[in-house]
């Protein structure tokens, strides 16, 4: 896979169209491949939105169940992963709305959204401090900017795909990403300079 300035992979593993077709035809193994491919990635996104591990797990489970129930309604206009991400985002938003309605809003219990890729014992202390700073900066982003940043930076989705997932315009995605970068740079200034 190619990499760039940011050192991140430019492509992500995707499910072959044939697998999607088989899943639509009711092949449980094929749907299992879809789940296996996207489960962790949906979890990362859900965690970024709801910021609570248990709630993020609920969201992922609910999203896959919804996807399974509605698989035959997936028309293939979009790729299966943007469809899945959209379901996960909607589910996570519904979760937040439910929390808001029931008053179960816990400002204290905020789970880290990121983790070190290869925890090397020698670098662990420094990584931990930097990781906390980066995580804190991401957590402090407004929800929409946080979603856009996660989808663009970590998931490498295009602006168009993100717009489709979040149900906003491409311009709004670009603006949100720009603001997110500005805020992250500001928050991490001590490390960047």
């Amino acid at each position, binding site marked *: 896979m190619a990499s760039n*300035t940011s050192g*991140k992979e430019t492509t992500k593993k995707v499910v072959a169209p044939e697998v999607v077709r088989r899943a639509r035809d009711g092949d*449980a193994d094929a749907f299992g491949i879809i789940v296996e491919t996207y489960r962790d990635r949906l979890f990362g996104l859900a965690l970024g939105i709801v910021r609570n591990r248990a709630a993020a797990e609920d969201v992922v489970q609910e999203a896959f169940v919804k996807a399974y129930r509605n698989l035959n309604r997936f028309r293939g206009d979009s790729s299966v992963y943007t469809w899945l991400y959209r379901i996960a985002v909607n589910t996570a938003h519904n979760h937040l709305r439910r929390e808001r*309605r029931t008053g179960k809003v816990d400002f204290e219990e905020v789970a880290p959204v990121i983790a070190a890729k290869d925890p090397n014992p020698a670098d662990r202390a420094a990584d931990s401090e930097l990781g906390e700073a980066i995580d804190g900066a991401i957590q402090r982003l407004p929800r929409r900017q946080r979603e856009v940043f996660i989808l663009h930076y970590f998931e490498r989705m295009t602006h168009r795909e993100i717009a489709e997932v979040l149900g906003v315009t491409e311009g709004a995605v670009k603006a*949100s990403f720009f603001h997110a970068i500005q805020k992250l*740079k500001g928050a991490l200034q001590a490390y960047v300079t």
Partner: protein
Amino acid sequence: MGKEKEKSACRKWQILVGERALGTINERDRASLERHLAGCRRCRQALAGTERMYRLMEGFELAKAEPLLAARVERALRGEAAAGKPEKAASPLWRWLRAPAFAPVAAAVSAAIVVGVLYFNVWAPGAPRPAEAPAARKAAPPAQKEDRAAAEETRAPVREERRAREPVPPLAEAATPPEPAPLPGEVPAAGRAAITPKVAKEGGVFAADAVTLTAASDEAEKKKVAAPRPEHAAVRRSARGVKTAADETAAFARPAFGKLEDKELTAADVEALMDARFEAEVERLTGDDAALVEYVTPNGLLMAYFYELTLEEQRTLLSRLRREAEAASAAETLFSY
């Protein structure tokens, strides 16, 4: 060119700067950006800063799920499969009904159904008030229920006819219950400003369930009320160095929820207003103050608005938003795929 103008002119380039550092810029944009970078020190600095930030982030990725999640999802899907195969593909008619072009019509129909149900069951003249309806229904003996059903049958055509002649009353007006007895520490209704700082005392603002909305402001009355504040409100007040939550809220929540004062607010309005104003409000209010950013989440904005309402007003708003959100959620389930 002034500094502000220069900054503004560079903004579109700095969006591309972020893409270039990420490696997601297309060739055409890259070429034009390179030409701009050659003559713009500000953007070169922005690029260098963004690249440094991305390098810092290289060693991190999104947190992974626990291994148990795999088994959990599998179990849920197995249960789903056991309950029945996935639904059949939608019929052409159903697909047409769910087509994007039809979505506004579908939303309008859903809204009309919700409003209709609420109007007939809750707001209709002669129907029990929302706050008293459950208790009244519970207490009614069977004979009384039958009488009520018969009376309803008689009244319905008359009501229909009257409704056809009269305009539908505004929502807040229609749903306004009898003025409740003042709570401890509450200023009696007669002398009370419509918006007064108040905190829910019976299980918090979200545990509530009923009644009215009014909107006005009376600074003198507000100062007289010494209502207790929730802890986080005190924290954010002290963090910002503002005098009262009322002052603070007046500064940002009221403009954001201005429509509420016209009694036209819906759950969708709340979402739209939050989306539209959120970034600007957070930026303006908090700067980089972590505690405040944490507080001023979408529900934070809503909660901040709540502190300006009486307990009864909070209950009305919540009750209404809950119903609308449930209807919206049901519609979303139907139309989001």
